[in-house]
């Protein structure tokens, strides 16, 4: 509509738009565009960023020349002695964990968010219910990490001060160290992520649900469709575009996610994810080459979603 047609009544110098854009473009160039290019070039360099990555190759060991950092980033966590060993090590690596995060957290947040949006629509205390689910969005990852570390607390003595283990022991079970048992701990961290982000998905999906005309739903109900059918056959198809947007947004969020893992386990006990691994390589091991290579891999994983984002934007602009 208005945005694509600019009023030409006002005389406008050629320079004026650029003056308005200057501060923003300058800052974005310095802080986003230039560092991206620089990071890519650093990923082909050695530890100090002073020479080619090929110089760190060790004789008699596999080396990919200037791609040596990528070899390290892509293979160091894997056991390639046999196919089964490879898949097993992949599943436990930071890549496998990131995959688990994407699968569980995206389905968890979107599923719960959608379910809650549909249910909350039917009760009088909708606003309160939604505010409570949405509240964790205001809490930092660090705060959420503490909140849940306390829920998961594992008491070595008889008394369990962590809520979850107190429930387990009161039901007669043995207390579980949720954050140190491999595999289980990743799931425990993902639960925190779901707790944080379900409100985001719920709010957006709820807005989409509310924009479905009542007549459509009423017509189906009058025709005798059950609620379940109305949900799957009418609501979900209508809001599908929004669901896709929410899913892509969540995948991007999960790929970048770092704080929960950093605060709760520090990536130990087999909970590492790509974004935390990058931090460890750069600022704990001070291996700039390795760290930037991991960062570039992260971007490569995100590029399809950048593409989708731009395509969606183009389609929206065309509709204006």
């Amino acid at each position, binding site marked *: 509509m208005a*945005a694509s*047609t*600019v*009023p030409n*009544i*006002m005389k406008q110098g050629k320079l004026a738009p650029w003056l*308005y*854009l200057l501060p*923003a473009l300058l*800052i*974005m160039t310095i*802080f*986003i565009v230039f*560092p*991206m290019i620089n*990071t890519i070039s650093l990923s082909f360099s050695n530890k100090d*960023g002073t020479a080619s990555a090929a110089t760190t190759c060790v004789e008699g060991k596999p080396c990919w020349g200037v791609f040596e950092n990528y070899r390290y980033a892509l293979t160091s966590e894997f056991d390639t002695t046999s196919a089964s060993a490879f898949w097993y090590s992949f599943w436990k690596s930071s890549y496998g964990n990131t995959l688990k995060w994407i699968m569980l957290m995206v389905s968890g947040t979107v599923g719960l968010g959608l379910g809650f949006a549909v*249910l909350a629509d*039917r*009760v009088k205390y909708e606003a309160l*219910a939604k*505010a*409570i*689910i*949405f*509240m964790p969005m*205001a*809490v*930092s990852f*660090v705060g959420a*990490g*503490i*909140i*849940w570390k*306390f*829920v998961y*607390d594992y008491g070595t003595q008889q*008394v369990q*001060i*962590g*809520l979850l283990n107190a429930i387990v022991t009161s039901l007669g079970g043995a207390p579980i160290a949720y954050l140190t048992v491999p595999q289980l701990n990743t799931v425990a961290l993902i639960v925190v992520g779901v707790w944080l982000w*379900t409100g985001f998905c719920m*709010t*957006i999906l709820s*807005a989409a649900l509310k924009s479905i005309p009542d007549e459509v739903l009423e017509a189906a109900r009058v025709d005798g469709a059950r609620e379940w059918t109305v949900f799957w056959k009418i609501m979900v198809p209508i809001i599908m575009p929004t669901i896709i*947007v929410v899913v892509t947004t969540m995948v991007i969020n999960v*790929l*970048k996610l770092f*704080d929960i893992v950093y605060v709760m386990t520090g990536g130990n006990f087999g909970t590492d994810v790509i*974004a935390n691994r*990058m931090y460890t390589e*750069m600022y704990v091991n001070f291996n700039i080459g390795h*760290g*930037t290579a991991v*960062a570039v891999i992260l*971007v490569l994983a*995100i590029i399809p*979603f950048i593409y989708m*984002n*731009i395509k969606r934007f183009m389609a929206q602009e065309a509709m204006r």
Partner: protein
Amino acid sequence: MNRDKINKLLNKIPTHLLIILMMAIWIVPTFGLLITSLRPTQAVNESGWWTVLAPPKGQREFTQNCASCHGDDGAALAGANLTDPELIRRFPRSLQLLASLNEEINGQPHMQATPVPDAQTAANIADYLKRISGINVQPRFTLNNYIDSLVGYRGTSTYRADCAAGTQPPEIKCNASDLLNPRGMGKAFINSLIVTIPATFLPILFAAFAGYAFAWLDFKGRFLLFAILVGLQVVPLQMTLVPISRLYAQLGLNGTFLGVWLFHTGFGMPYAIYLMRNFLGSLPRDLFESAYLDGASHWTAFRQLVIPLAMPAIASLGIFQFLWVWNDLLVALVFLGGTNPVMTYQISNMVTSLGSGWQVLTASAFLSMLLPMIVFFGLQRYFVRGMLAGAVKG
């Protein structure tokens, strides 16, 4: 009609149950944090937060076993004649216990012939006696954790107790200047504010300029530039850390607030411009046309028309950017670190290296959540609006 109503209500019960269950799961962890942060250290470590209102440890054993010979204050009843058969008949268990405790309580000797109750029960009773006789008074709720957290106290007792006894650690002065202790949350709170305010204001200002240009000015490459901007929204922060660290090292900006302001400004920009442009673009065209016809320049239109009209967008953007910067850990960790610690950094440090007790950790976490919670509950409407504008409508 009436049966219909009842049926309708019954049909809704599963819905209510599901919603309430989920609300409970969402609120209970935070609620537990709040309760824990208000409990004294010892209580936190020896019982779950959900028992906070339960009778104090040992009270049940005490009433079962000794209440009849000891008054409510725990002192033995002086008048209790332990040889009186009537009294023994009325309070047999208490006499059994008194008899078994092989010690004197308030100078009243106890008999020693009967079997001792299990050690746990006796210990619980002893705890309770200490409590009610005033030897070991423990309030149910205390603000000590918050004080310890604010001043960065890391001792074995509490800040108030240590200061009263004069046994405080050397870095503690026991006056208001303790609030500026670099290890405390008080100082970190101020640092967080110093970081957040300019890092919220600057990107919105620049984004308003750029958003105006994208929405109402004509220039070459307008569409392409905006499409690139949409793509930049998704670039992960991690991608830029090393080059910016190096740049900052050369310019001496590492560990300075200026460096963090600029970084957050740069990274908040694509989303802010996107939102601003979409909002400004949806304003009625006539508005600008009539302003131009009246002889307004772009600059006047921007200042007197755009800024006031864009207030809702600025509000939601402001909340977003505020929460994002306030809650950020990665940028603060890399560019500020320990030189000017912000709240998130301080807490993550307590978890990983210093190993504070739960009472201080929970109090610190709650302090860091206080301002975002106020902002969130006060301005929720704008928050949701901004989110919807950014994520779906476009």
